[in-house]
């Protein structure tokens, strides 16, 4: 046991949920510290429970540990009580496996899952004993890299991170780590090492790209000589052949997803215009049914979980979902293993699948119409008809589900009062349908519950709505009040996201490097773990912006399509022309259909129309996907 841990071991009973800090879970991979040459640590800027629910972290952990000469350990953000304890005891943040200080690793990799975790990155760096800014770290410090869902606008974090990795890292991470080790053991300076690493595909070295401003406005990026003109997102072409772990760590704590998670597909082509993941994770790629069945078998045997969760951006769009679910259910029928699907599409087919997996205990189902009227759903390209929703909820109530959650967004482009009225109307109609079914039902049914959840739309980078403005606080609050007044009645409840938190998320999602000192400023005053609502101090952010002569509107106001964007030097694979074209289609309410079952929409991600789509259906015919083009 490392010395660092022995100083704190006997004090852990003083902190909440001490099991967060002990490691030693089933399937944890602890390698010989002395004997393993390359030492890497994955850092997640939130608590253990949140981090251990993140699939990307697990994939990279097991991928790196597959290599004999590489060890990969984990570190999560300590809760405030543990941070205090670490400071009192004078010890640095340590990894869970070998209980080693972060300083002793060659490489520290951060997961960027959501914007409000940025301050927590600074907490981990600081408690680990690393200077916050890349410029203040020399070769004796671990290389700090970051990647994940919000990496497509990493600019606010640029000064703190040495390198960003754009896209899916499981294919090339080993190459990157080995190359770094090789460079480190030669005589290169830190600057030279970073430069050489930046030549690898997907690697973004921010110091080579300097933004410039004029009168408080972002004007563009000056690219250093010899640097790549743009950094392209990397992705796995054939998901079916891609690495996927089966020996998942089994946490003691009741984490968010304490079950066997199987990623059945990646990417989504539905083309919802507000959805950053749907735009940036293209093309849609699926694992084959056979692969999924065998992964399920191995994961259940290795973990002892009693629940399998099929995960993807849109599980119902998996081309062989019916076959998959039927066969999975049959395979685990007598073994007390249940199957869950996180996301349901709004149609009768989805209900059929849901009935298949949830033979017993039907309690709640979630649907996401996103907007209250057909006009607005056309603008956002959410191809859902009102009648589909009513049909789906009718079917759900008739099948025994009594609680329906409906997800909507506020502040979408083109939103008017009738759209808010539409949310109330859809919810009320849903409740009426349920109550009617319950009254006429011959079996006993629990009271109908319709839970309406509204979140505030955030115009994110690399979506067709990236030019649109974020609603003001006053506007958001008015809309929530409107819904509070109009969404009343038996069976109905309304839930909404905190408007201030949404504004902060938008600020960091759309910001540029001028926000870095703001992040550092609020962090110094105590901001951290802001994914937890009680930890968000909006006034502090407001003050910090003021201190640096910035305003929220500098980042949240509407932009012209011709305006340079802080993320223009990054490339997700989807063309800016396509995003602009989609923005225009939105303005005229024109829908763009999913290219999986219609013509190519020329988003730019496939070399030739549909060539990037790798679906489970048709795989037997040498992976050919037939389309009439």
């Amino acid at each position, binding site marked *: 046991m490392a010395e660092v841990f022995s100083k704190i071991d*006997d004090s852990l*009973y003083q902190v909440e949920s*001490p099991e967060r800090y*002990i490691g030693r*879970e089933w399937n944890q991979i602890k390698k010989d510290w002395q004997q393993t040459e390359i030492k890497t640590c994955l850092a997640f800027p939130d608590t253990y429970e949140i981090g251990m629910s993140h699939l990307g972290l697990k994939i990279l952990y097991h991928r790196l540990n597959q290599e004999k000469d590489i060890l990969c350990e984990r570190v999560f953000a300590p809760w405030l009580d543990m941070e205090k304890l670490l400071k009192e005891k004078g010890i640095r943040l340590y990894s869970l496996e070998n209980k080693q200080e972060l300083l002793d690793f060659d490489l520290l990799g951060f997961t960027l899952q959501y914007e409000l975790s940025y301050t927590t990155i600074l907490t981990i760096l600081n408690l680990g004993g690393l200077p916050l800014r890349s410029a203040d770290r020399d070769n004796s410090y671990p290389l700090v890299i970051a990647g994940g869902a919000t990496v497509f606008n990493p600019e606010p974090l640029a000064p703190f991170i040495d390198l960003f990795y754009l896209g899916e890292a499981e294919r090339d991470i080993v190459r990157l780590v080995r190359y770094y080790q090789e460079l480190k053991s030669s005589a290169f300076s830190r600057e030279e090492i970073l430069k050489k690493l930046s030549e690898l595909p997907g690697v973004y070295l921010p110091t080579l790209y300097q933004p410039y401003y004029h009168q408080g406005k972002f004007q563009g990026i000056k690219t250093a000589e010899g640097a790549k003109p743009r950094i392209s997102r990397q992705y796995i072409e054939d998901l079916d052949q891609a690495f996927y772990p089966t020996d998942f760590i089994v946490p003691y704590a009741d984490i968010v997803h304490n079950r066997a998670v199987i990623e059945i597909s990646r990417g989504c082509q539905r083309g919802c215009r507000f959805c950053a993941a749907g735009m940036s994770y293209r093309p849609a790629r699926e694992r084959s049914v056979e692969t999924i069945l065998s992964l399920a078998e191995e994961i259940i045997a290795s973990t002892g979980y009693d629940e399998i969760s099929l995960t993807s951006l849109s599980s119902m769009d998996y081309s062989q979902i019916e076959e998959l679910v039927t066969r999975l259910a049959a395979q685990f029928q007598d073994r007390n293993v249940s199957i869950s699907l996180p996301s349901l599409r709004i149609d009768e087919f989805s209900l059929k699948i849901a009935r298949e997996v949830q033979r017993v205990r039907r309690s709640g189902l979630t649907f996401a119409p996103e907007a209250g009227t057909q006009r607005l759903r056309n603008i956002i390209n959410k191809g859902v008809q009102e009648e589909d929703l009513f049909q789906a909820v009718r079917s759900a109530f008739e099948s025994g589900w009594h609680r329906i959650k409906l997800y909507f967004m506020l502040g979408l482009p083109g939103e008017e009062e009738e759209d808010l009225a539409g949310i109330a109307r859809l919810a009320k109609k849903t409740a009426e349908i349920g109550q009617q079914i319950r009254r006429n039902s011959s079996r006993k049914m629990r009271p109908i519950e319709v839970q309406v959840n509204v979140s505030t739309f955030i115009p994110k980078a690399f979506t067709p709505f990236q030019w649109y403005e974020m609603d003001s606080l006053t506007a958001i609050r008015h809309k929530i009040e409107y819904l509070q007044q109009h969404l009343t009645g038996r069976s109905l409840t309304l839930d909404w996201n905190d408007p201030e938190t949404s504004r902060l998320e938008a600020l960091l999602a759309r910001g540029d490097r001028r926000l870095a000192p703001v992040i550092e400023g609020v962090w110094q005053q105590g901001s951290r773990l802001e994914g937890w609502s009680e930890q968000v101090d909006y006034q502090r952010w407001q003050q910090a912006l003021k201190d640096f002569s910035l305003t929220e509107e500098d980042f949240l106001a509407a932009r012209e399509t011709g305006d340079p964007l802080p993320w223009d030097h990054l490339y997700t694979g989807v063309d800016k022309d396509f995003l602009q074209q989609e923005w225009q289609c939105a303005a005229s309410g024109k829908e763009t259909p999913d290219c999986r079952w219609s013509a190519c929409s020329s988003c730019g991600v496939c070399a030739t129309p549909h060539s990037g789509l790798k679906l489970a259906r048709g795989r037997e015919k040498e992976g050919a996907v037939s389309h009439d083009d």
Partner: protein
Amino acid sequence: MMIRAKFRKAKRLRYISHLQLLDTLRRAIRRAELPGKYSEGYNPTLNLSLSQPLPVGMAGGGEYLDLELTAALEPEDFCRRLNDSLPRGIEILQARLTDNRLKSLQAVVDRARYHLLPPLKDQSREVRDSRAEAVLQEFRNKKEIIVVRKRRNKSDRSYNLREMVHEIKTAAEGRWSFLVSTGSRGNVRPEEIIRGLQQIDSSIGEQPLINFYREGLYVSRPPKLLTPLADEIMEGE
């Protein structure tokens, strides 16, 4: 058919809660593919039950579990297979199979033995040992030691701790050993032992839970003290 086993929860695993321990054992039983029986109903779960919870932070050397089975298996086999599927820190020590209907562990267990690092600060070993003996003797001699129990959402309550301490002695390495009532028919919390000791020697300070060790859980059948695996208990009602 049922198997009852004794296990140890120690080292870092003393930091996992009772519910987490239950989940950990359930998953280990599934990994080991042991023939555990599941409950009927909407949400089938393994019929596994444990003895009285250990406080988070305290290690235990004689904890017990009951698992209903659908098929017989050798107790040694059970121990070996389950141990192979458990994280380090939890160890199955002994098991017995029975067809008899047994009272649940929490109903039958009524004694717990706690070991405590001597809470005296004297420098020299000799002084400490003799003072320890004096403190313990005085504890034994008392007829009444009233301590106050703080109860969540309820008013405080006083009770005579002395009545519920059944044996006081010194164990290995000079540790103080207290056999106390536990369970629904009278329960002593470890921190209340400290409060009792403080009435005898006011220099004794607060003791963190990790200074305690629950050596074992027992069943009192005067004049005998049995373990839940004893013949008399395994024979059933």
